[in-house]
């Protein structure tokens, strides 16, 4: 077996080491922490490229592109629990993406977090996150994946709450942790069920893994009490984990709040990698997801995949609608992420692994570009996040503006030259030809229109017109970052960010442009790489069947969305930060409704959380008065016994000897006193024991 396959574990372990070392380092060793994190990511990136090249090499030699390495961890009963890692095209693509984007964001963070006193801790968490995320990617065991998945959740919690002195950040981190945990519970149940059914959690293990034919067939043949097969049940449960992690409706509520974390965190964790882990999970267990009991043809879709599609489509539309009415630059991007994740899920549901994953990869690049751009804007505006108070940054921050525009056009899916166009088009095309329903296609198309609209709205607010920052300078916003930045820059005049921040932007921008060409219909390299099929160049495919109409209509949709955006926001520059939103004027109640994200949070607060609070109050009462009473009683009995025993031991048994010894040391007349002393009491017990034991044994031996 090849060296890289055997040593793939190095990829996650290197950042883990970096995290470990910087966790032990002193707070002041900032350079050490940053260089360790970036260095380890760079090494991991090189290893990932090597792994990627290895897969390419295998492919070009016509060998199987999937290689696994399993090892035994520990034994319980007669079963061995095995873990392992798998190198296949899916792993390779994700590895390269995560390490590359991660490395750039690490570098960017050096600039962004420069003035933060907990710089070292930040890099420690970031490296830990990267390690866990890479662990998720390479895991060949659902258990290993779940463990890394939980660490990812933990680091997300730690990083959202990084500025923990800010109550909103602390609350957001708790919300993120608990909400994703709600999804993880069914996920874990799914794992347990899967283990009970198939006896293994390894994905691939020479035919014995849980994603391989024998196991899948077995799962399909098992029927549950409510009618569908075990495979569907397990797949839906696992998908619940993905819903939580990837911010799908109805567990999306944590993701916008997660923007309380530092912006590089938003870019890395809550846009490019962690939230995509849910999509990746579905892609990883795709054989299970697509298993269905009917006649196995490509035309039927399994129940699980239908669920994935509908959840994805609803989320895509839902996120886009809400994003229209937000004012926080990062919250807009957050809802956009929710919406795009919905697209990916939908892509997985209607088109397969390659379709969803292609959008995941392109999205990772352009969304992290957008987030880093937003971070640069926030940095330049001294921590301001409200787009109403920005404006006119086109001239002041030229690099940021240029790269942000590229990212924005890629996100909108601007025709032909932007990666988002090709990946989104794939999804819409697959949705168009879906055999169950056309509704997801129309939902997706409408979401695309809204995407173009809200992004142009954001662009005009942030970069167009004149700067509105000065008029609100006395009303300083609340984040510690803002105080920090303002403090260090002295003036609040917007300014371009330092090179350490803009260079990663410029490095990401080409990818946002060019990645799309890896997966066009004419030359579907990416798709054939992931699905391991023959690659054919066929320019005719662009014009075939439904491809052309879909492409044209989505182009029109994008242009329409941008046009409406220009019509409402771009025609006349926005004059004042206090002026009501141009769109809001059309229908204020509706706009407020959207601005509050359909009041989903309030709904949850009024229903589930209230119920939970009541329940915890009851539990608390039971705990205090019923259970604790019982425990207290037992405790007091034991304590009483203890005092009694101690009393006997020290006063009855020991006191004689202690007295004797004290006088011994006082007078020195050791022997005489001991002779007359109380050692008997002490040894009498031993003699007594001897007699008791002997009598019992003799009596029972019946001699």
């Amino acid at each position, binding site marked *: 077996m090849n060296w890289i396959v055997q040593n793939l574990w190095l990829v996650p372990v290197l950042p883990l080491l970096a995290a470990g070392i910087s966790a032990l380092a002193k707070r002041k060793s900032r350079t050490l922490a940053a260089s360790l994190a970036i260095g380890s990511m760079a090494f991991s990136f090189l290893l990932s490229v090597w792994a990627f090249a290895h897969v390419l090499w295998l492919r070009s030699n016509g060998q199987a592109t999937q290689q696994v390495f399993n090892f035994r961890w520990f034994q319980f009963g007669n079963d061995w629990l095995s873990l392992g890692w798998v190198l296949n095209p899916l792993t390779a693509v994700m590895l390269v993406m995560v390490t590359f984007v991660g490395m750039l964001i690490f570098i960017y963070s050096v600039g962004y977090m420069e003035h933060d006193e907990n710089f070292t801790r930040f890099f420690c968490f970031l490296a830990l996150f990267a390690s866990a995320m890479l662990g998720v990617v390479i895991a060949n065991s659902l258990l290993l994946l779940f463990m890394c998945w939980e660490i990812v959740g933990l680091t997300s919690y730690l990083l959202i709450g990084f500025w923990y002195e800010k109550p909103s950040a602390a609350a957001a981190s708790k919300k993120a942790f608990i909400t994703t945990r709600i999804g993880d519970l069914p996920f874990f149940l799914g794992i347990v069920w899967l283990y009970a059914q198939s006896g293994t959690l390894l994905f691939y293990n020479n035919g014995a893994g849980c994603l391989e034919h024998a196991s899948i067939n077995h799962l399909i043949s098992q029927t549950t009490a409510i009618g569908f097969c075990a495979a569907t049940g397990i797949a839906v449960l696992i998908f619940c984990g993905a819903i939580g992690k990837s911010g799908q409706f109805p567990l999306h509520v944590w993701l916008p709040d997660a923007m309380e974390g530092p912006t590089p965190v938003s870019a890395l964790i809550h846009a490019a990698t962690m939230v995509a882990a849910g999509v990746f999970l579905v892609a990883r267990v795709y054989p299970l997801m697509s298993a269905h009991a009917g006649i196995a043809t490509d035309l039927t879709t399994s129940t699980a995949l239908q669920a994935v599609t509908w959840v994805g489509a609803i989320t895509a539309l839902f996120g886009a609608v809400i994003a229209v009415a937000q004012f926080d630059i990062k919250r807009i991007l957050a809802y956009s992420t929710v919406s795009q994740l919905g697209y990916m899920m939908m892509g997985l549901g209607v088109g397969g692994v390659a379709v969803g994953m292609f959008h995941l990869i392109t999205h990772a690049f352009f969304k992290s570009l957008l987030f880093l751009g937003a971070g640069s804007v926030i940095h330049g505006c001294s921590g301001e996040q409200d787009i109403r108070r920005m404006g006119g940054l086109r001239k002041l921050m030229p690099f940021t503006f240029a790269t942000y525009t590229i990212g924005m056009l890629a996100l909108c899916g601007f025709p032909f030259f932007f990666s988002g166009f090709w990946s989104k088009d794939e999804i819409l095309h697959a949705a168009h030809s879906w055999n169950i329903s056309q509704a997801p296609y129309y939902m997706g198309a409408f979401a695309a229109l809204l995407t173009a609209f809200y992004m142009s709205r954001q662009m005009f607010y942030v970069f167009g017109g004149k700067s509105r920052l000065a008029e609100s300078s006395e009303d300083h916003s609340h984040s510690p970052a803002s105080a920090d930045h303002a403090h260090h820059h002295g003036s609040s005049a917007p300014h371009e960010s330092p090179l350490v921040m803009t260079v990663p932007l410029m490095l990401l921008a080409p990818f946002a442009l060019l990645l799309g060409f890896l997966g066009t219909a004419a030359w579907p390299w990416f798709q054939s790489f992931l699905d391991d099929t023959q690659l054919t160049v066929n320019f005719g495919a662009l014009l075939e069947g439904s491809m052309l109409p879909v492409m044209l209509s989505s182009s029109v949709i994008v242009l329409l969305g941008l046009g409406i955006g220009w019509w409402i926001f771009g025609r006349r520059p926005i004059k004042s930060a206090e002026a009501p939103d141009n769109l809001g004027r059309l229908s204020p109640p509706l706009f407020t409704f959207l601005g509050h994200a359909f009041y989903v949070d309030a709904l949850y607060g009024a229903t589930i959380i209230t119920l939970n609070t009541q329940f915890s109050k009851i539990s608390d009462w039971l705990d205090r008065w019923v259970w604790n009473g019982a425990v207290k009683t037992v405790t007091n009995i*034991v304590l009483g016994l203890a005092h009694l025993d101690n009393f006997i031991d020290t006063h009855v048994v020991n006191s004689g000897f202690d007295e004797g010894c004290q006088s011994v040391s006082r007078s020195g007349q050791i022997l005489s006193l001991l002779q007359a002393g109380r050692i008997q009491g002490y040894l009498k017990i*031993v003699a007594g024991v001897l007699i008791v034991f002997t009598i019992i044994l*003799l009596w*029972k031996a019946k*001699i």
Partner: protein
Amino acid sequence: MNVINYGQLLQLIWPEIILTVTALLVVAIDLLFFRNSRVRVRFLVAATIGSAGCVAAIIKLLLASAQGSLLDGILLSNPLTHLVQIALLVITSVTLFLSVDSTFTAHVSEFVLLLLLATTGMMFLVGSQDLLVIFISLELLSLSVYILAGFDKRSVRSSEAALKYFLFGGMSAAFMLFGFSLLYGFSNSTSLTRIASAIHGQPLNPILIIAIVTTVIGFGFKIAAAPFHFWAPDVYQGAPLPSTAFIASGSKVASFFIFFQVLVLGFAGAEGSASLLHFQSGWIPVLVVVAVISMLLGNVVAIVQTSLRRLLAYSAIAHAGYMLLAFVAHTQQSLASLLYYVATYALATLGVLGVLAVTEKQLGNDTIHDLAGLSRRAPFLSLCLAIFVLSLAGIPPLSGFFAKFLLFSALLAAGPGSKLLLWLVIFAIGMSAVSLFYYLRILKRVYVADPPAEAGEIESSLLLRVIVGLLAGGVVVLGCAPDLILTQILNAIHASGF
């Protein structure tokens, strides 16, 4: 009459010879060259030489041939004895380094000499299956340890402890020797295997019963099982800290091992049964009673202790109770779990005493109360202390948990369906729950309580921190990967044909 092969004798006792020579060397070098140096320097030199001797003995043991026996087990060597001897040597060198910072005596070389001689005694003890050698080496060990306990001549407590220890020890040695003599009279041999074959197949007679009870008393004293424990709290509290460490760890490991051998090999066929319906005289009923009393008394009395050292003593009594359960099962698996248990227990106890070595010096006493806020005054030591204490309490993933787990599962595996074993395990688990109370009280003091005002950071020497850190690392690693030594132990047990 067999003829002794002196070449073989030499081969077998090489490690012991190395240790004895090292002990003499330490005295010579210390008295010749370092008489006028500071105590710390003298301790450092003596400990280094002593440890070098231990390491040399370990190397010799690793290289020694796997099997060897002289005259029916008067001296023997097999993988199992090697393993236990190596553990003893490691413990001794840790103890040596723990003593480097102590100031209780100026007689450095004598102290180290006694420690090494006690170790030699333990090595012989472990490597023999003959009553006579067992008794003599036990006496070598005991006599050295009595002096070690009283080594702090200026302290009244130390003298008191030593005297108590000595008197009690002498008495139990007398009991044991009486038992041994009965055994000899009964079987005409001092070899454990021959005694066993003499016992085998015969009904229990009164002589044997008395021999059983006196043997249990003799060893019960060494392992501090109740009700032979009275010396323990005073000795733990009064003896100089390195002596306590040695008594609590090395001496325990050796005594448990040889006690198991004597009972299981020597009294094979006289096990008896302790279940109420099929009660049968033998050593198992005796041990069941001793184990239950030890667990109950040790855990319960530990709750009200205010001195950390006394608390350790009572917790040692409780742990002795758990470990005695392995005797009740007396299978290969239970021996393995016993060895794992006693080794990891020794590590954790050494660790707690190592931390105490620092705090006692700085705070002036060992009350739990004075540990308040230690986590802020010495974060690293507190972390290590937490690891040791939690391991003693049996919290996963530390080695203490795994030791208990192994022990209990060995017990259940030994007699599937046996109500007695099941109830013993349930009782032991209940008692460990009780023990959590006093262990956590220590940690509460360390982590939750506020340090006294104007309390500064607690200074500790680098050497001590390294040792304590290594011990903590050992506790964690052995807990996470118990296979590291468990497979060694199991292999050794199989290879030794126990």
